[in-house]
């Protein structure tokens, strides 16, 4: 079953009392982001929820609230949707997920990001830019969320290649892109090409046909 639409619509679930990532107001034609508080999720019926190509989350997610909506999250994924998760998982919202594992030691070496597989969500970003910002390591991630079996590992940290980023095609339907660090949406916010990273992710999402 495919879900056809005129424009690709995303739902950004806002969790903190903060501004919306500026990139969402600078999207290319054919992309649209709706914004809702995560506490408004219960007011969005399944038909409306399932019409979104992806749910975009922030690392400020109230994971107590989100985990309590496991049935709705599974239903959304069953419909073929994608969830982009940022930050450490501390309350697994799917059976297959496990809590975040911090790096045992945080040094320049263990925090260095390496690319484990080329991935269309990160087309134009040199991995060195994820490792260091103004020579400082650690912004991209300080550990990993354990990937379910079958996940595609995208980026790793340090010599152990702790999988800080991965994509998982859920056998029962849907996709999870999991990034265990600071929000992708604003990661390069003070740089001239600030939008390149989030637009890479959104472009990949838009290219995926929503199927079950």
């Amino acid at each position, binding site marked *: 079953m495919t879900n056809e639409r005129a424009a690709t619509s995303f739902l950004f679930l806002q969790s903190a009392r903060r501004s919306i990532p500026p990139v969402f107001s600078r999207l290319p034609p054919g992309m649209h982001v709706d914004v809702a508080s995560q506490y408004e999720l219960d007011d969005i019926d399944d038909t409306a929820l399932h019409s979104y190509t992806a749910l975009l989350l922030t690392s400020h997610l109230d994971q*107590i609230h989100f985990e309590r909506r496991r049935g709705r999250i599974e239903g959304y994924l069953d419909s073929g949707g994608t969830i982009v998760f940022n930050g450490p998982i501390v309350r697994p919202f799917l059976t297959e997920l496990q809590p975040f594992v911090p790096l045992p030691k945080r040094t320049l070496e263990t925090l260095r990001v390496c690319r484990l597989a080329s991935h269309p969500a990160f087309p134009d970003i040199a991995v060195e830019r994820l490792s260091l910002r103004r020579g400082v390591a650690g912004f991209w991630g300080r550990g990993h969320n354990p990937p379910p079996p079958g996940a595609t590992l995208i980026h790793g940290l340090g010599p152990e290649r702790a999988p800080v980023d991965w994509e998982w095609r859920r056998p029962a339907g849907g996709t999870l892109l999991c990034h265990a660090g600071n929000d992708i949406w604003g990661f390069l916010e003070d740089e001239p090409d600030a939008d390149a990273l989030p637009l890479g992710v959104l472009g990949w999402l838009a290219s995926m046909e929503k199927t079950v």
Partner: protein
Amino acid sequence: MRPRIAATDCGTYFHHESLRGQRYAHFFERLIYMPEFRPEDLSGLDALIVTCRTNADFLIPHRAAIRRFLGLGGTLVACGETDAHLWLDDVRWTSTPTNYWWWLKDKADSGLRPAAPQHSLFQHMTLADATWHFHGFFEPPAGAQSVIDLAGGGSILYDDRTSYGGRAIVMSLDPFYHHGSHFMPATTRFLDAFLPWLTTELIAPAA
């Protein structure tokens, strides 16, 4: 007697790690999950810590209850990025852009100064333990004591024992956020010192 300290919990990963993790969980009698916060949650408490990045929208409707808690002699700690000026009377706040990079320069100066070196907090920590970055500054009410000042004016941590009946410690530092993010070791040193200091003060306040 062990003081009864509650902390606000917004369900984020950093609240989870800082409040429920083994390092600090024993300090808290109660964690208050803020979407379900009720004024009754404050009853019987000696102190409430409004932890970093607690959404002010959960506190604004309960401004009067917080004031009552203080009026009954309670201690309130308002951490950074909680917009305390929106839910606590007499807080005068100026937001500033955050400079995360100041320490990369030669002879770097954070701008922080001990405003009250004799304050009991400094028996538990040094200024270096409170030094990472800040998100703005306060103008403390008359009668409040600034503990840490900014070189250019304003306070980033003050102790107010005169405005409310109880005691308010207001800061623009965000240690629970960064400790819970496994980032910035000074924030862990800060909490290692601050939580025992708070416990001590609740049992026997320094003069």
